[in-house]
């Protein structure tokens, strides 16, 4: 049985784009604010649930639900930043405990409201696209396109706009940035809103491709952390590279190894790289 390189390549791209989309918001918060937002997993999950609620229960158009869910969750980001992050700026331990508390509380609330039964969102674009010997599910292709667009937008925003430059400044030296007159609170709220919005978008899209339950965030969080640490703190574009590497590993290895073994290999690769280069592939020198 020959291995269809083109199909494998497409699979890698599809998986990588899912990973990158999930990790992007997390990367922004870690790089700009230095916050390891464990709550990213529940925001992702809530985004999926809100989309489900709007589209399936209320019957709105699914794309519109996705956008609405993104807006709602993005606004929640304002609350998150103001009351959960800002009081603990500079204290990583307390921030971590706070984000863990958020996970516990939100997962339980969702559990109470909706129950643990596994649901699924119908595909955004049903069907499978075949051509030139390769086939790809339309939903995944759409996810890829949206992911690529959003990633490119984020990278451009950070490099070209004032806000982006300010974010870079804060990520390198927050006190110095404040002394330069940059309103770090405004920037941190913007960054949090963007991160939450990105989490919601990926949550909604993933709800259609994977399933939906209050605990889907947990596995996603591990992958996101892997990607972001591999990429390195301070590098948003590095997330693309790291996402591609992990996507490639996770698409190709399962052909030969079991799921758990794939994880082991992937993690060992990451650990080895980190031992020699703790700041990640593209990160700043510590």
């Amino acid at each position, binding site marked *: 049985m020959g291995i269809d390189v083109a199909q494998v390549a497409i699979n890698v791209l599809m998986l990588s784009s899912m990973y990158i989309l999930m990790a992007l918001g997390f990367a922004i918060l870690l790089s700009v604010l230095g916050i390891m937002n*464990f709550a990213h997993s529940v925001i992702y999950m809530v985004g999926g649930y809100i989309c489900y609620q709007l589209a399936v229960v209320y019957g709105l158009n699914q794309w519109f639900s996705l956008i609405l869910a993104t807006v709602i969750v993005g606004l929640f980001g304002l609350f998150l930043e103001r009351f959960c992050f*800002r*009081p*603990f*700026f*500079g*204290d*990583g*331990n*307390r921030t*971590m*405990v*706070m984000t*863990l*508390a*958020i996970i*516990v*509380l939100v*997962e*339980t*609330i969702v*559990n*109470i409201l909706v129950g643990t039964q596994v649901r699924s969102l119908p595909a955004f674009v049903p069907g499978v696209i075949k051509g030139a010997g390769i086939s790809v599910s339309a939903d995944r292709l759409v996810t890829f396109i949206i992911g690529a667009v959003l990633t490119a937008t984020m990278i451009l925003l950070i490099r070209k706009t004032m806000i982006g430059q300010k974010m870079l400044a804060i990520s390198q030296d*927050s*006190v110095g940035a*404040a002394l330069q007159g940059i309103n*770090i*609170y405004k920037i941190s709220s913007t960054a949090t809103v963007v991160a939450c919005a990105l989490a919601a978008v990926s949550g909604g899209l993933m709800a259609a491709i994977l399933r939906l339950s209050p605990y889907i965030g*947990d596995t996603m969080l*591990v992958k996101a*952390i*892997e990607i972001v*640490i591999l990429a390195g703190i301070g590098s948003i574009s590095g997330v693309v590279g790291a996402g591609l590497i992990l996507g490639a590993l996770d698409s190709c290895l399962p052909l030969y190894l*079991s799921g*758990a*073994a794939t*994880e*082991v290999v992937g*993690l*060992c690769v*990451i*650990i080895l790289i*980190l*031992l020699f280069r*703790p*700041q990640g592939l593209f990160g700043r020198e*510590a």
Partner: protein
Amino acid sequence: MLKNMLKIDLSYQKVKYAKIFTGIVILLLLFLIPVFIHKPYYLHIFILAIIYIIVVCSLRTVALSGQVSIGHAAFMAIGAYASGILAKQFGLTPWLTIFLGAVVSMLFALAIGFPFTRVRAFYFSMVSLFGGIAIMNLIRVAEKWTGATSLAGIPPLDSLNIPGIVQITFSNQKAAYYYFILIVALLCLAFLYSLEHSRIGMTWKAISQSHQVASSVGINESRYRVLALAVGCFFSGLAGACYAHYNLVLTPSTFGFLPSIYLVMYMLVGGLGSFWGPVLGTAIFVLVPEIFRWMKEYTPLLVGGIMVIVVFLLPKGMVSLFYRNEPKIRKIHKKEALRYDA
């Protein structure tokens, strides 16, 4: 003036005696628990709590040297599986394999120690996080190989038979296990406490405060970091092995990503600054959800609520409620961020 001096002295003495007195009372209560509580389920919770207390205290020992390991449950797993396999496959008595399990865990820590401890603080946490998940998955892989979904059939502790003096069977005897783990825990905690308040502990704390200064006075940073890791992993392995011979069944998910994070959380919420912080934190987080089990699916809200309260009001952890001189409840200021915080 002399009177004032005497007054101060007396109050310190008073505090010391009060502490010793409370300690003895708590110790007595702990030993009397199985006398008053007979329901095996409640004893089970206490046993689990004590096992986790050993693990979290050993986690804190590692953290003393500035390395917070977010993968510590994996070392529990190594001890547990090593002991379980040695007892089940090779027929060795659990009394021996528990110790061997701890040794295996420690050897593993030594093996990965040198490269891992070269990495500083935050990056060490990340590497330990990934390492912990890798180990859990490795166990899954091994299980696939052997075709089992979990390691079952682990022999319980052999009965203790000293003719004329003592005769204890452990099978199905929760009370016996309780006393066993209580004594083990007391010994482990005594050792860890003694270490921390010795020159070794001081050296660890020195490394975590300023590694430049530490090396300038001759401290071999790397060796001491590995030592901390080895000690911490020995005791986690020990606790894991005890768990194995108590639970008699092992599944990888008991030692995965979430449990590791919980361990760190217990330590942080309890309080990093004091030896008793992890004890308090673990006790609260294991016992409270059980006491309030009647709240069913609402119970985690209570846990989350406690976490939020502690993180806002008790920045140094729950244990700071017992500190004498520190300001206890911090006032909530409006603009707190960017204040240089001690």
